[in-house]
């Protein structure tokens, strides 16, 4: 009998109740964390081979991993490629004139004239990589970036495009790439989940389904952590330690009798789980407390920025580093609220993009520097991407509509070739014309760097073997070191 096919629907596994299973799930679910070793970090040679990692399905990576963790810097709403990393001087020539190329249907269908970028570009570093004036800090680490200028998506609309970017399929209910990573590789820290989402204030359109475990076991779903307020839901005790201790003792008495009576492993696992939860209450605040970071580190990230969104994002990036240090496989960092919308500037491009860039610029640059100096950049793959790019022609007079036909993402660290650019859009930055890539290719590359062959990490659900890249996915070869 085919046992693995027994769990056909959303996130099903049978009573996941063995002790081993319980331990495997120790750091997962909605709120999770931490036992011993939480603050110890993990030595980085435990990447390839037979390290007994719990909660993973692959016995070993398919190839030597270049990256141990991913930090996905999700740029909510879709930044304009011609305003960030893909300079298009010809747009200036045509600025205000009818757009000279054939225009495909857009989300708002309120297409105006050609709109040049309001920002200048300069070349930076030894690589001479051009970066727009939106990013005075990131430009300083330009030599670390590998810019892919020819990314494409299948969807012009936020939610479908977000599901696609996160799960490889443009509909809700599928496992997120972080969940796939956790499923395949587990967490390197027995007490932390494999997939954490640091929620900065803006949940992507499409909602929490973007972080879903889909049909994978529930423990692989993104654990939401907030950089403010209660970090993890229900992890803050409502009782005094003494009161909790009294309750704990009575529960232990009742439970041990029941466990003895039933002899069921399910009950024993739930008891162990309860004990774990007690300890997590103490561990979570320590993990998320950034006060222990040095003053220098704090100001490097921008904890003291006069702009509140920068301060929020700075804490998110710093927390991401702490999670990666402790062996979390996949950390997604979502954007904070800025002055108006996220990167989705259908109007007032200048003010909107400036605010969004200001929120993320310093913290991202700091994250790269901080990882670099701690020796973690080599094993941490950073991915900067929105769900699509923006049109080179205006929406209305001063906005840009969604553009899935050619846009920019970048990667850094984790065995990615630094200081490079790959592919190209046409002279107006509208469509990818040289080495066009799909989101599946980004996923395949990301998995590859983690040591996983995307074609060989599958899960059977509803009568077929699914994978993150569906039936697609080619490596972005030029990006590989």
């Amino acid at each position, binding site marked *: 009998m085919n046992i693995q096919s027994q769990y056909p629907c959303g996130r099903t596994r049978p009573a996941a109740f063995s002790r081993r299973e319980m331990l495997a799930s120790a750091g997962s679910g909605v709120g999770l964390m931490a036992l011993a070793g939480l603050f110890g970090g993990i030595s980085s040679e435990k990447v390839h081979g037979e390290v007994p990692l719990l909660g993973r399905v692959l016995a070993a990576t398919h190839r030597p991993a270049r990256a141990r963790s991913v930090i996905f810097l999700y740029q909510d709403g879709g930044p304009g490629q011609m305003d960030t990393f893909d300079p298009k001087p010809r747009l200036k020539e045509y600025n205000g004139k009818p757009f000279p190329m054939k225009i495909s249907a857009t989300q708002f269908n309120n297409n105006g004239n050609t709109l040049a970028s309001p920002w200048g570009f300069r070349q930076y570093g030894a690589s001479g990589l051009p970066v727009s004036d939106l990013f005075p800090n990131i430009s300083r680490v330009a030599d670390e970036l590998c810019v892919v200028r020819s990314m494409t998506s299948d969807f012009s609309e936020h939610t479908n495009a977000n599901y696609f970017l996160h799960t490889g399929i443009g509909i809700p209910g599928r496992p997120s790439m972080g969940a796939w990573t956790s499923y395949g590789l587990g967490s390197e820290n027995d007490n932390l989940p494999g997939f954490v989402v640091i929620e900065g204030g803006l949940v992507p359109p499409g909602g929490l389904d973007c972080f879903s475990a889909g049909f994978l076991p529930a423990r692989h779903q993104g654990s939401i952590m907030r950089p403010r307020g209660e970090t993890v839901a229900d992890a803050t005790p*409502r009782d005094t330690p003494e009161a909790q201790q009294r309750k704990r003792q009575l529960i232990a008495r009742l439970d041990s009798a029941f466990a003895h009576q039933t002899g069921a492993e399910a009950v024993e696992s739930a008891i162990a789980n309860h004990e774990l939860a007690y300890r997590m209450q103490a561990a979570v605040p320590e993990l998320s407390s950034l006060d222990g970071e040095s003053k220098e580190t704090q100001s490097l990230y921008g904890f003291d920025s006069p702009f509140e969104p920068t301060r929020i994002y700075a804490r998110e990036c710093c927390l991401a580093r702490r999670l990666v240090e402790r062996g979390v496989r996949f950390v997604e960092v979502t954007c904070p609220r800025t002055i108006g919308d996220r990167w989705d500037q259908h109007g007032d491009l200048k003010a909107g993009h400036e605010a969004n860039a200001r929120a993320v610029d310093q913290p991202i640059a700091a994250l790269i520097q901080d990882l670099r100096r701690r020796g973690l950049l080599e094993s941490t793959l950073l991915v900067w991407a929105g769900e699509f790019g923006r049109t080179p022609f205006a929406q209305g007079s001063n906005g840009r509509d969604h553009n899935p036909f050619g846009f920019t993402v970048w990667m850094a660290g984790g065995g990615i070739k630094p200081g490079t650019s790959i592919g190209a859009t046409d002279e107006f930055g509208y469509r990818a014309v040289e080495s066009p890539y799909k989101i599946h290719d980004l996923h395949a590359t990301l998995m590859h760097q983690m040591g996983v062959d995307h074609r060989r990490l599958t899960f059977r659900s509803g009568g077929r073997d699914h994978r993150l890249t569906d039936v697609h996915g080619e490596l972005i070869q030029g990006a590989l070191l």
Partner: protein
Amino acid sequence: MDELRGSVCDVQPVLFSSYIFKGAMVGLLLIGRALSSDVKIPDFTRDVRPVLAAKCYPCHGPDGEARKAGLRLDRFETATLRLKSGRSAISPKNRGESEILKRVVNPDPELHMPPRGEPLTFEEVDTLTRWIESGAVYSEPWAFRSLSDAPLPAVSNLDWCFGGIDQFVLASRESRGWAAPSRDVDSSGILRRLSFDLRGLPPEAADLSEMREEGEGDRYTRLVDRYLADPAFGERWGRHWLDLARYAESLGHEFDFDIPYAWRYRDYVIDALNTDLAPSRFVSEQIAGDLLTPRAGMGLPNAAPLGTAWWFLGPATHAPVDVRQDEADRTAGAVDVVGRTFFGLSIACARCHDHKFDPIPTRDFYSLAGVIRNTRRIEGFLDTDPDAVGYAGVAYRALSAASVAGGVVPRASMIADRAAGVEVIDAAANGGAEWSRSGHAFDTSGVGFRLASDGTLRTAESGTLDSSRLSHRLTGSARSRDFTVSKRYLHLRLRGSEAAFRLSIDNYWLDGRVSLLFEGFRRKLARADGVGATGDPRNVAWKLETFDLARYQGERVHIEVLDEGEGWIEVDTVLASDSATVPDAGGWDTDGPFEASITSGATVEQARLSAVEARRALLECKPAIRALVADEGGALDEPVHLRGSSRKYGEPSPRARLSILGTPPVEKVSGSGRLALIASLTDPARPFLWRTTANRVWLKLFGRGIVETPDDFGQLGASPWSAELLDYLAGKLASGVTFKQLIREIVLSHAYRAAPEIGEDLSMAWGPVPVRRLDAEVIRDTLLSSARVLDRKAGGVGVQARLTEHMQGRGRPGTSGPVDGAGRRSVYLESRRNFLDPFLQAFDQPPPSTSCGRRHASNVPAQALAFLNSELVHLLAGRWAEAMVPEGSVARVPDVGVDRSLIGQLWLTAYSRSPRDTELEAALDFLAAERAVADVGLTPLQRDRRAYTALNHTLFASKEFVFLR
């Protein structure tokens, strides 16, 4: 983890030596077997098919497009054909000539099969070898076979068996060398099991004392019947069905818009289960309740259409840039739900290609897709008054009679010359006979008279669809047939007052929420002056409303007109042209006012009076309700979409003609084909619905199905551990046994009452119900009921979702609901896709993305954290204490006798049993310690309640509270 690992084609580099070794091992196995006499012939379904399906069918299976080397291994005829190479993959009874056996152990990577992924294991190669040697007999996949009618099997311990179910169960055990389970669950245990399984609530104390009384064996039976009759039964089993229906009350995606009236469907399901609607009728109503003979229920003369909301409960996105693709995706989602729920098959996998493993051709997908595309989502008008239909019929027939008696005849067409390039799409001939209607406003008779508000007869316009023939006060909606856009502009000649009309493109409807990309596709008619109670609609001028469809060429569209109140609307003609204006719009009237040669006379007068009287009665009827229901759209067969493209089409696939359902029982397919679909699906001779349903019922009672994969009976799914038992139960459903009857028979079986045994290997057969954790909703409901705050009120609009600070995102409701959900059962909590209840989620309530027949039973820290620290648990522990320690009940000095009594009650509530002595002492000590905590300013009442709150909290967080023995 081992089970999981098996699903991944991972890891080890293939070593040549391992193949050589493997070949040698197989040889040894065969030699060894030759020496022994009791070699079992592998069963194709159980042993061989899983190997072929997993390792070979991806390239050599049913999917013609993916097939390599022209070799198809899922059928005897093709698997044994001589290939180009001159050899055969499978040569029955001749392993030496069977190429497949050589390839699976060939070390040469060029020749080895499968070319990628994990090679076959020794055992698998051995199985294949023995199967081929035995003649390579293929048998039909079990799920496709007709229901068998096996006699009750012989068992050695007939005394253990209470009935047929037990005989099958025991036979299955005995065939594997196991005896009957040795003991039953004790009375408290079985009572909890029964009460939670049937009602999702703990048993009442009275039930417990009733069960404890020794003697009469039928006490249990009486409790079964009482629980089945409890409205809580429908709430519990309705929730099971809602899992399959991917039930939610919002659409998810970016803004998480409401699904209007979704809650009526939830109430419909609960009511159907409580009233024990026949399973075939229950399923039929969800597919086509709008087309069936009416069934009174839920206070409605016809509740059947409410079931059809089932089609429209999936997620949806607003403003799709490609609306046809959007419809295709929504359709595929519905196909998936149909396939999993009713067939137990992944029909949705056949969208782009024939199914890789199961015999499901792509045309079956589009046969279902055609049914769905021809089914429209409407917010219909449902009568609440049983007499409304009758009065409306009388009134319209009287108007018709008056017009015949009055000699009213349509005037000849006024169109002399039609302008070139202008096409009449719909002339609303015969009063718009082709338009589908909901409510009573729109004339159903095409009559020549209007009955004015003052009761006089007026001649009306001929050839129009009109909502004011009988009264402008009636409400309703009407929809044109589907047509395909071939010209740029569409023009509606219409008039009216305070009514609405819209153009629906590819059945898209979310423009009502965000008009982005569909600006102007919904329009309203302003109040026309001088119409009111006595005015004459004929005084209102006709106008031409034009839609620019430049972006929607080739799309399928229809028009909907809506009269929701005092207003009215009258549609004359629908035109299409390539010009934004149509010359001489008035001239496009296809037919003018009726001519009345006689407008009076006794017959006319009699009819008039009859119409006036029926109208009065109709207007006095209780008002209709609105509900999300299905309506018939077009009647077009859907072409196969080549490789799943929404733009490239192959041959049309006849609607509701799935090859997997065999020869259709009805010849003619009309309309959407939904009636034909249910005729096939609910045919007692077709196995899918009955097997999947019987298995679902079993699974919910035993925690494990007869087939472990309730939504996948295909080649990659599990096989039944007792096909005979499954068919025994399925056969009952097919013969008309109801859900309650089936559940009753199962819970009265000895099998259901047996106690779990430690360490039994249950991989291939039946074992007693294991120790189980309660379902998410049941945990929450039991918290409420323990705390004495459960409100058993049934039905109605969902209780607003409670929002925590971790629940963020677009579409977040402006306000948050009550912590305790107003004390209502969890099934009545609003289910918003983007803001699902974190407590219920933590305990594995499935996300409503597609059908889910089997829930996860996870064990994650979020569960323990919820019990430790959630606002809900703390609040309810306090409420319980308030109920246990009422005002005025507290003495200055705590009374141990009172405490003992209260602790006894707590235990009874939480665990359905009395505390053991040690537990009692521990609880007393606990209370004493809690009371001893210094806290100035607390009254004795407050202090006692605080102590009991703490004790209650510990009971909530204890494992016995949430686990069933």
